[in-house]
């Protein structure tokens, strides 16, 4: 706004001769060019109101509820930080946070690694129908998680495709690995994780593919002239060039792991036993099923803090301090 006004010199001159009062609003625009003045807040006000009403307000109330013992119906009693200590002292809740760590591996680390391999392959050789593969790999991102859960329930079921294939392998002389995956105490959590990996790969890959196109071709040519093989080339050129994309991918997928509720809710409901309990599911379970609203909110707040910490941490770690 300021620059436009200044360029119109005749208008400015006219303003100069105008009474002082008329010039007052102009002061809001003072300061360095491009820096929004106080008036800028007015433009953000509608968005800020919505943000405040639907995000900050619930967050604040949630934080407040977490300091009470409340069954969601009657009178609440002050709890101090006991809900937070319960979050760590209750073995089933501590276990849930442990499961979260495992799931971060499956939801975040594994998809990024696999996506790197795919992108490495795709960027080195020309593949026919690349768009097709890209679309297919991205597809899980588009499907609602609830639908994903239902589909995988079938995939993992006793007579589903996974067990059918394992049955063939067994017929070929391998040990019998068939089982009801979501109902198996040892394998339910990795089985849930594998679904997360499947969903996450597409997102990571699309991000990386976009990033690779930004890397100057000359760098690859230089690397090849210097005699770098595919592995050297990847670590010397591709990986450094994708740092920002990696940060975004890690952040998004980790947060996906942290707020992983729908998949657990639909596929396993935390079972068998407590084998696939995750904090996000417990937030819901404690708040709406067992009438421990305070505890549910405490877990929720803990998760929010965790998500913030992860976001900040990943940016530091991957992008460096300048980010």
């Amino acid at each position, binding site marked *: 706004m300021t620059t436009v006004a200044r360029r119109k010199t005749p208008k400015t001159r006219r303003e100069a001769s105008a009474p002082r009062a008329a010039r007052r609003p102009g002061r809001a625009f003072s300061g360095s060019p491009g820096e929004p003045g106080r008036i800028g807040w007015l433009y953000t006000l509608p968005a800020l109101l919505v943000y405040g009403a639907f995000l900050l307000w619930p967050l604040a109330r949630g934080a407040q509820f977490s300091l009470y013992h409340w069954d969601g*119906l009657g009178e609440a009693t002050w709890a101090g930080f006991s809900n937070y200590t319960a979050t760590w002292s209750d073995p089933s809740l501590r276990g849930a946070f442990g499961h979260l760590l495992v799931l971060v591996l499956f939801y975040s680390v594994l998809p990024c690694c696999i996506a790197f391999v795919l992108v490495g392959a795709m960027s080195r050789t020309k593949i026919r129908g690349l768009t097709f593969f890209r679309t297919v790999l991205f597809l899980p991102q588009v499907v609602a998680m609830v639908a994903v859960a239902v589909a995988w*329930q079938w995939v993992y079921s006793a007579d589903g495709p996974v067990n059918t294939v394992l049955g063939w392998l067994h017929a070929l002389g391998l040990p019998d690995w068939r089982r009801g995956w979501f109902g*198996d105490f040892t394998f339910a959590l990795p089985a849930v994780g594998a679904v997360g990996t499947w969903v996450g790969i597409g997102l990571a890959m699309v991000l990386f593919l976009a990033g690779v196109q930004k890397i100057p071709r000359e760098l690859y040519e230089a690397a090849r002239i210097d005699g770098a093989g595919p592995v050297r080339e990847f670590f010397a050129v591709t990986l450094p060039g994708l740092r920002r994309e990696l940060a975004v991918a890690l952040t998004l997928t980790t947060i996906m792991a942290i707020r992983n509720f729908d998949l657990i809710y639909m596929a396993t*409901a935390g079972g068998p036993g407590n084998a696939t309990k995750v904090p996000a599911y417990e937030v819901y379970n404690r708040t709406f099923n067992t009438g421990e609203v305070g505890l549910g909110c405490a877990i929720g707040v803990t998760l929010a803090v965790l998500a913030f910490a992860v976001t900040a941490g990943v940016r530091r770690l991957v992008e460096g301090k300048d980010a």
Partner: protein
Amino acid sequence: MPTLTRRGAAAAVAALATMLAAACAPGSSGDEPESKAPAAVSTDVAKAGNVTLTVWDQEVQGGQKKQIEELNKRFEAKYPNVKIKRVSRSFSDLQKTLRLALSGGSPPDVVEANQGYASMAQYVKAGMLLPLDSYDQVYGWRKRYPKGLTDLNSVTKDGKLIGSGSLYGVSLNGEIVGLYYNKEKLAKLGVQPPKSWAEFDQALATAKGKGEVPIAFGNLEKLPAMQLYGILQDGAADKEAVRKLVFGSGGSWTDAPNVQAAQKLADWSKKGYFTKDANAVKWDDTPVNFAKGDGVFMFGGTWWASELNDKMKEKVGFMAPPPAQAGSPSATMGGESLPWSITSKSKNPDVAAAYINFITSPEAMDVSVETGNLPALAAPSKQPAEPLLKEVSTAWAELSKNDGITPYLDYATPTFTDAFGGPLQELIAGRKPADEVMKAAQDDYSAFQKKK
């Protein structure tokens, strides 16, 4: 840009602080309803003027849906000044949303609140439901229903004891968990429907030996195992002891008969009597698998009867679980469908009470039979036509006569499904012995009793 971010953050923190200061403690908003009982009761619905009655129910499945739609239609025809606004949700969705709705400013007039300490008792304690005693004096529900059934819908004002105190709801349908069996398969195996637990064990072994799945069972949700355990418990323990235990007035989950029942469940699982990987199979898939022919027997509620009747016709039979000794009366879990209750903030409690009276009247029992359901009280002029529904109705009548119905175990504590159902999954997977599982149940139970 950085300055903007920082300023934004500062503003957000300031806003949060103000909001927190302005917010009052949860649940103390001052508009808490008193559990007032109306001074004068009016049964004259026609005089109430134009009324819209909001009703929240969970009658979404085939026969149940038909039944309530028909009853609502008849009620509106009888009282043209009343309009019923029906909101129906699935059982679990209703459980979750009801809590929020009741604590809100304008809850529905009539709701189906589940029995047990997790639902009805908590609502009563918070003063959200209207005690129905003064209406009962006019409509005589306690006289119409057997004591066992009205007890299930009664709670003391402090929410501490189910089975005494005021009446807070009336139910329309009856329900029991019984034993379905595939008649065709039994004939092929040369086995008769079992008359005792010993005969049943024999039948299971025979079925297993001939390569059949003896019991169709899906336990992904943890709750099914609690029902199966409950049936075994009813076979091992005294029914009065079970009732006392569930309602929190005596006994322990680690008592010998209760551990025995868990041991039996573990044994069955070890012998391979259940659907393979039962912990990975959904509850809703159990009757589907059974109807497809996977399973000779299946334990399940009467709420599945109308669906199974449609799918299997004369191939399926139903009976109460066998008694310990042949000829003696059996016992099983069950009772009645979700009770219809009036919320304490309802503006038309008189009309709501008349509605509840209408949908639990003898006429309503007839409608229940017509739509393939099991009415809580004998229908005056209708009989089920289909053989399966007849068997269901016979089993219900028999159990009612012998006072053989015990409460569902998840009534025991608000956290019981997780605290007992989870360990039961481990029992079925062979990861935990029976005594440890029962100790886990007892730990949760005694913690709740202390808190109550």
